[in-house]
């Protein structure tokens, strides 16, 4: 089992402070003045050279946001965020020109190299031969480069940064932006709509199967900045796209805010597969620092037989508040949610999904694996609902939690709402610890305790791991090993 060996290897290599992406890139940046008001919104819009309609949309969002209050229902505790103490825009100085690989500052290239993300088009993801992935690299508030654009354009796939899409494809952006997560959807989505800086835009035309994996890599670098990216993916009739998202940040003593919005739209017979490996800086072993991750992700299965599949691996962030959801509007549409949430140290995760069945015979599946260690709190919160007219709906939910150590907590809060009799809903959840029997068995065969735990945990999350694209699977197995390091004994 090479994966397990890798895990052990990884665990060995790493010291007490496990986060390996915590370095900072020294690069000159342009920042917006500190604080938040309409002028800042105008500033961001102007920096990005946006048309008037976009500025209006942002201002409208900002005004709505002023009237909203911070949600407090989640099972997380954090100091009050002073939204006036943040920078809402930061961009490396060198990237304001035209975007081709040659123009990208060498510091940035080195940063991504160090993160194991190849921005060279002939490059491949570390460790996986032959796999080609188009990458949109977002550094603080701007997209620095998008690779394989030309090749994708040949088949009609639009893959670019959000700023570019607003300039180049306003008709698509106007039509779809905010149609899944409206401006006033929730507090953090409202904030994002006002100040979002960049993100990825994908449009896959009718009948096209996207020839390669698309990927965005988010990096927060600057101090005291929030990152607010917005991603919009549209899969037109009969198309298919697989999209990966990764993220890291430097180690800092302060907490940084990340409030993203992701909107997915699948039309008739289309399929979107969205995978995330979230590895923001989780804070140090005493719970100091780390990213506050308040994210709104939602997919809309608008067409018949459409399918949206979310796969997430959550290992980073001090606070995670994230519920990738599916609105199953189309007949026979399908939503899937596969999640591994690993918390250690003083991390707090409140994550889950919503499956809202509106279309007839729509179906959904939720597999959630939570692993809590150290002093962390790990909550699964999910909603499955069937509308009165949505007949023949099916859902299967399975949430398992694993506790490692007696100072952590694992919680399950599912909401199940069947508003008609033909809905078949099944929900099951279990919580347990690694059984002594299993551990003993492994140790007896000569595995060290840490290796044994890593092995058992990898087995525990296997159902979800298998749903990840190949490129991510290896990395994730390593990540899980890393995140749990120090939790044994």
């Amino acid at each position, binding site marked *: 089992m090479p994966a397990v060996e890798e895990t052990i290897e990884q665990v060995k290599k790493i010291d007490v402070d496990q986060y390996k992406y915590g370095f900072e890139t020294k690069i000159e940046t342009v920042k917006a003045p500190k604080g*938040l*008001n309409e002028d800042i919104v105008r500033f961001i819009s102007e920096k990005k050279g946006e048309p008037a309609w976009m500025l209006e949309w942002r201002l409208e969002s900002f005004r709505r946001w*002023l*009237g*909203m*209050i911070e949600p*407090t*229902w989640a099972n997380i505790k954090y100091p009050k965020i*002073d*939204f*006036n103490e943040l920078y809402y825009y930061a961009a490396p100085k060198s990237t304001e020109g035209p975007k081709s690989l040659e123009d990208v500052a060498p510091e940035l290239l080195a940063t991504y190299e160090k993160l194991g993300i190849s921005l060279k088009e002939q490059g491949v993801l570390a460790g996986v031969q032959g796999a080609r992935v188009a990458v949109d690299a977002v550094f603080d508030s701007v997209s620095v480069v998008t690779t394989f654009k030309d090749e994708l354009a040949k088949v009609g796939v639009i893959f670019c940064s959000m700023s570019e899409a607003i300039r180049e494809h306003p008709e698509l952006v106007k039509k779809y932006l905010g149609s899944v997560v409206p401006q006033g959807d929730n507090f953090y989505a409202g904030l994002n709509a006002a100040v979002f800086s960049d993100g990825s835009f994908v449009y896959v035309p009718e009948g096209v199967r996207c020839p390669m994996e698309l990927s965005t890599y988010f990096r927060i670098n600057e101090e005291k900045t929030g990152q607010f990216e917005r991603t919009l993916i549209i899969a037109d009739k009969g198309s298919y796209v697989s999209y990966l998202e990764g993220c890291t940040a430097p180690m800092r003593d302060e907490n940084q805010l990340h409030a993203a919005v992701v909107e997915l739209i699948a039309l008739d017979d289309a399929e979107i597969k969205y995978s995330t490996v979230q590895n923001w800086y989780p804070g140090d072993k005493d719970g100091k620092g780390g990213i506050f991750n308040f994210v709104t992700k939602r997919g809309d299965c608008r067409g018949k037989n459409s399918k949206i599949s979310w796969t997430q691996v959550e290992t980073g962030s001090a606070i995670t508040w994230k519920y990738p959801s599916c609105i199953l509007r189309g007949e026979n549409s399908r939503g899937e949610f596969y999640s591994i949430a690993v918390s250690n140290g003083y991390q707090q995760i409140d994550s889950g999904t919503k499956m809202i069945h509106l279309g007839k015979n729509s179906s959904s599946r939720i597999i959630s694996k939570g692993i809590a260690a150290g002093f962390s709190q790990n909550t699964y919160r999910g909603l499955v609902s069937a509308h*009165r007219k949505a*007949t023949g709906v099916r859902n299967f939910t399975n949430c398992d*939690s694993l*506790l*490692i*150590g*007696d*100072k*952590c*907590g*694992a*919680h*399950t*809060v*599912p*909401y*199940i*709402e*069947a*508003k*008609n*009799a*033909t*809905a*078949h*809903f*099944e*929900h*099951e*959840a*279990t*919580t*347990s*610890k690694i059984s002594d029997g299993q551990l003993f068995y492994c140790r007896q065969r000569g595995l060290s305790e840490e290796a044994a735990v890593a092995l058992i945990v990898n087995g525990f999350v296997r159902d979800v791991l298998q749903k990840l694209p190949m490129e991510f699977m290896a990395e994730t197995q390593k990540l899980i090993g890393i995140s749990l390091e120090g939790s044994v004994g």
Partner: protein
Amino acid sequence: MEGRLPIGVGSEALNDLSRSAESRAPARQDVALGRRAMNVAVLKTKVEQALTENFAAVEDQFPGGAEARKVRDAAIGRFGALGLPNRRVEAWKYTDLRNALKEVLPLSTGDKAPVTGSDVSAALGPLAGIDAQQVVFVNGAYCEDLSTIGSGSAVDVRSLAEALSLPEATALLSAEGRDDDPVLALNAAYATDGAVVHIADEAKLDKPLLLLFVRAGTEPCFTVARNVVSIGKGADVTLIEAFVTLPGASQGGQENAATKISVGDGASVAHVKCTIDALNGTHLANWLVDLGAHATYNGFQFTSGCKLLRNQIGVAFKGENAQIDISGTFLVRGSQHVDTTLVVDHAVPHGTSRELFKGVLEDQGRGVFQGKVIVQPGAQKTDGMQMVRVLMLSPDAEFDSKPELEIYADDVVCGHGSTSAELDEDLLFYCRSRGIPKAQARALLIESFIGEAIEKVERDDVREALAELARQWLAECGSTKRT
């Protein structure tokens, strides 16, 4: 992670208690960036006002001395601050009392309606066959003539009205860390009568103790019952609560019932509740159970009555190695709304809990199940399993379920499950292929579905009576329904 059971409004509302009940102006906070605080006008509904005002009007008539009066005043103050729960209150998300309660009926002070033993038997139906010691309350007041129990050495039963005049009576009205529940607060404020039962250590009762709450008269009224039961160490008891309506009596009415039960170390208790009364009435009830070490508690709730019903069950493990098995069945039809909300709090190690609830929803019936299992830090070796299964027989039925786990200890095994579906067509086909008519096959399948829960009742006579009640319900449904 607070010790109190979080059925209810939660700590935010408790903080509001510092504000007086009268001035409920929302506390405006200065928000960064000059943002407007959400201007939610906290206006009291007519019903909330009436509940507070009526209390002042009848306060002199409540049993108990000055001490009890203080507790009642505090309780109505809490209610005033909390108000009726609405769907924005997490624990009441699916049962919006503020919206559902449109009026307050006059409080019954127990004016003696002429009720005879045979009336009561008729109202009890199959339950009449259980040979039990009865304590009867008619319209919320103790009825000595119909009760068949005296005080013996093993069992001591008094009416709450009487017990409240004794010293230390205020404990009978206390809520013990459940101050955030408006329904319980109302109960403490308004409690007119109920049973105060004390079972001696090591007492083994052959016959069940039946607390019977009868609705009589043609005028619907508001009744408030509060039972306080303490079960001595090593005792073995079966306790039955039944809520029934006399034939010909008003089908309306509002009921607020609470039973506090503390189970001594090593005691074994079977606790059954049967709510089959007033189809148009409202029934809000609480069970508060404290468990001693090595205690065994088997609870069962049979519900087929009332238009709007909520049973809250709070179980707290106070001693190690205790075990509970709580189950129930809710049969819902017409436009009934039946809510079962359960909080099991494992505060100590080595506790075992089992819950199984089965529901059948007909017509536009709505079922709600909320079950929360908490494992406190240090409550290692907890074993908890919860299951709710619902059959939806009509396209217009609705079922909302929220099974929750909140776990702060690692060496535990906990799980829950929740399913809802129609009757399995294949099973139906199987029966029909063996020559069983469709209506009968349906009834058979539903009966066996409910049966799994009813089986949990250990006493034969009680189990049989409940099974018969279920059959009657099915027959009534069948007669008005498609075949």
